[in-house]
C-alpha cells in the first residue's frame, strides 16, 4: 500500500514539475490577485469623495464640517449651484453631498431636531449605504456633544477593538487570502482525474492493483503541498504588502489551514471524478465554489443581513469558517479555544469530502 501510494505521489509530483507554466500560474497568480484585488475591493470611506454645501456659514455648521472631515471622507469642491441631482453624480467625481441647511445653528438651539441632508448616488447602493451610515454616525456623535449652551446628557466614547483606525484592509485582505486559497485548491484537483479520463490513462490505471484510496490520496498529496505553499505565499504577501499584523499564533493558523485546504482539494476531486470532460470540471468547480465563497462567507457582505435561506446555506460553506479563523488569528489574535466550532467543522467537512470522493470513485468505466 505504501509503495503503491508512493508511486502515485511521485508520478503526480512529476506531472506538476514537468508543467512549469501551470506551476508558475498556480504560485504567482494568487499573489498578483491579492495585490490587485485588495485595493480594488475595499470600500475605504476615508478616501470617499464627498462635498459639503454649507448654507448656514455659522460656527456650528463649521464645527459639523470639521467633525465630518476629521473622521472620514475626502472633502471636495462643492458644486456651485444645486443643478439637477442626477447630473451631479453622472461624472462620478463625488459619492455624496451633505447639505447643511440655513439657520442650522439657530435651529439647533430652538428645535429638537435639525435635519441635515445627504445626497448620494443610489446606483452604487453600497457606497451610498456606507456614506449615509457614516454621515449618520458623525451626526449622532455631534448631537451627543450637546447643543451650544447646554452640556451633553451623556459622553459617548466609541472603541473599535482590534482595529482602532478602522483600516478596511484588515477586513478585506484576510478574506481575499481565504477566497484565493479556496479557488486554487478546488481548481488544482478538479482536473486531476478527469484529465486522465480524457487521455485514457485512467482506464489503464483502473486495471491495476491501485485502490480508490490510493488513487485519491496520491492525487491529493502533491496538490496539498502546492496549496499550502500558496497559502504561505499569500500570507507572506499580505503581511509584507499590507502590514497585516499577525497577532495570534502563526503555527496555529498554518495548522488550521490544513483541514481547510484539504476540504477544497477533496471537493475538487469529487467534481473531477463526477464529470466527463475538463470543461465540465471547470464549470462545476468555478460555479460551485467561487459563488458561495464570494457571497456566503462574510468576505464582503455581512451574512447577518441576508435572507434566512441564504444564511442557512452559508452554514455549509467552509470558507465562512476559515474566514473566521484567519481573521480571528491574524487580526484579533485569538487562540484555538475561540475557534473550536470552526475547527471542528472544517475537520469534519474535509473528512466527509475525502470519504465521499473515495467511496464514490468508480472502479469501472461507463
Amino acid at each position, binding site marked *: 500500500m505504501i*509503495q*503503491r501510494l508512493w508511486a*502515485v505521489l511521485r*508520478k503526480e509530483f512529476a*506531472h506538476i514539475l514537468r508543467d512549469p507554466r501551470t506551476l508558475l500560474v498556480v504560485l504567482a497568480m494568487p499573489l498578483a490577485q491579492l495585490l490587485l484585488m485588495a485595493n480594488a475591493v475595499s470600500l475605504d470611506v476615508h478616501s470617499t469623495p464627498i462635498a459639503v454645501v454649507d448654507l448656514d456659514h455659522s460656527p456650528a455648521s463649521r464645527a459639523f464640517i470639521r467633525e465630518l472631515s476629521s473622521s472620514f471622507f475626502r472633502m471636495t469642491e462643492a458644486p456651485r449651484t444645486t443643478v439637477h441631482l442626477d447630473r451631479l453624480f453622472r461624472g462620478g467625481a463625488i459619492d455624496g453631498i451633505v447639505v447643511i441647511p440655513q439657520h442650522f445653528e439657530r435651529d439647533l438651539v430652538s428645535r429638537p431636531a435639525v435635519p441635515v441632508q445627504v445626497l448620494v448616488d443610489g446606483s452604487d447602493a453600497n457606497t451610498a449605504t456606507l456614506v449615509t451610515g457614516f454621515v449618520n454616525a458623525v451626526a449622532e456623535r455631534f448631537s451627543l456633544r450637546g447643543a451650544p449652551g447646554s452640556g451633553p446628557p451623556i459622553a459617548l466614547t466609541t472603541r473599535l477593538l482590534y482595529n482602532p483606525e478602522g483600516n478596511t484592509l484588515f477586513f478585506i485582505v484576510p478574506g481575499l487570502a481565504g477566497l484565493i486559497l479556496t479557488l486554487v485548491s478546488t481548481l488544482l484537483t478538479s482536473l486531476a482525474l478527469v484529465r486522465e479520463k480524457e487521455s485514457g490513462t485512467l482506464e*489503464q490505471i483502473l*486495471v*491495476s*492493483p491501485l485502490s480508490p484510496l490510493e488513487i485519491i490520496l496520491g492525487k491529493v498529496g502533491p496538490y496539498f503541498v502546492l496549496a499550502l505553499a500558496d497559502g504561505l505565499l499569500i500570507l507572506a504577501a499580505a503581511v509584507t504588502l499590507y502590514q497585516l499584523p499577525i497577532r495570534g499564533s502563526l503555527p496555529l493558523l498554518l495548522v488550521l489551514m490544513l483541514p481547510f485546504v484539504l476540504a477544497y482539494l477533496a471537493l475538487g476531486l469529487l467534481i473531477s471524478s463526477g464529470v466527463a470532460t475538463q470543461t465540465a470540471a471547470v464549470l462545476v468547480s468555478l460555479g460551485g465554489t467561487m459563488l458561495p465563497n464570494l457571497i456566503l462567507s462574510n468576505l464582503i457582505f455581512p451574512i447577518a443581513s441576508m435572507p434566512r435561506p441564504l444564511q442557512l446555506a452559508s452554514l455549509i460553506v467552509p470558507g465562512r469558517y476559515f474566514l473566521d479563523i484567519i481573521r480571528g488569528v491574524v487580526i484579533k489574535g485569538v487562540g484555538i479555544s475561540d475557534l473550536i466550532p470552526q475547527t471542528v467543522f472544517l475537520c469534519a467537512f474535509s473528512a466527509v469530502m475525502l470519504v465521499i470522493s473515495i467511496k464514490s470513485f468508480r472502479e*469501472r468505466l461507463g
Partner: protein
Amino acid sequence: MAEEGPAIAVAGLTKSYVRAGGRADEVRALAPFDLTVARGQIVGILGPDGAGKSTLLRILATLLLPDRGGGTICGHDLVTGYRRVRRAIGYMPQRFSLYPDLSVLENMRFFAEIFGLSRTAFRARMEELLAFNMLGPFLDRRAGALSGGMKQKLALSCILIHTPELLILDEPTTGVDPVSRAEFWEILGGLRDRGVPVLVTTPYMDEAQHCDRICLLHEGARLAEDAPERIVASFPYSLAVLRGGDMLARQADFGSLEGVVRAVAFGDRLHLYTRDLPGLTRRLAERGLEVTAGRPTLEDVFVEKMGEAARARA
C-alpha cells in the same frame, strides 16, 4: 489460482448501451457471448469497427460490468473477484494510455511500483523487457515523444512488467507502421511460446495468421470461431476473381448473374462466390471476361458469414 483451468472461461455475456442523445432505444453491443481461451494460445477477435470488440475486452478486463453472464478470468470470478483479475492480467486499452510527460523509464517504474515489484525485481524485469522492446536507448525520452510503434512497445512493456498470466490487448497494432506491426506480433508469439495466453483484437484480417484461433465478431455476435486455416477452409464456395475497372459499380450486375451466389468488391478486384467454377468461367469467357480461380481469404469468409447472419435474421 487454478493453474490447470482455461485462462478465460466466460459465458452468456451481454451488454447494451443507451444510444447517445438519451432516446429510449438501446444498442446491443454484445449479444450473449461465450469464450474460452486456453493457456498458451493467441486468440484474435476480428471484426470491423463497432463490432463490439472493445466492449468485450473491457468486460473481460473488469472495466465494464456485463448486463448478464459471467465466468472466470485466470480462475477468478469476473464480477466478484475483479480485484484479483486485475492483478492477474495485463490489459492494454485501444488508445495510448501512458503518461506522455513521463519518460520511458518513469512510466515503466510507475507500473512496476503499483504492481508491487521490489526494486531488484524491477531491475531484473527491466533487463528482460529491454531485450525485446529495444527501448534501451530511449529510456530518458518522454513517452509523448516516441513514435507510434515505440509507444505501443512501451505500453506492452508496462503491462508486462508484473508478469501477467493473461494479456488482453485492444487493437495494439492499429495506426502502427507495418514493420513495427510485424515486430509486435513476433513479441506476442514469443510470449505465447512461454505459455502466456493472449487475447487480442484487430481490424486487420491479415493479422489473423498470427493467431492460434480467431473469432469473427459482428454486431456483438460470433460469426465463427476456429483456427484461421480451418475457418478459411470452411468457405463453402469456389472463388472466381475478376480484375480491373470500377468494381463497386459492377458488384450488383454480377451478383445477379446465373451461378453467382454473391459478388463482393475488394478494391480493384471483384470476388464472385460460386458453386460451379468451371461453368461460371465458361459463361464469362463467352462475354469476353476473363476470371481466375482464387483462394478464399478470411475476408471472404467474413463477408459470407455476415450475409448468412443477415439472411438468418430476415
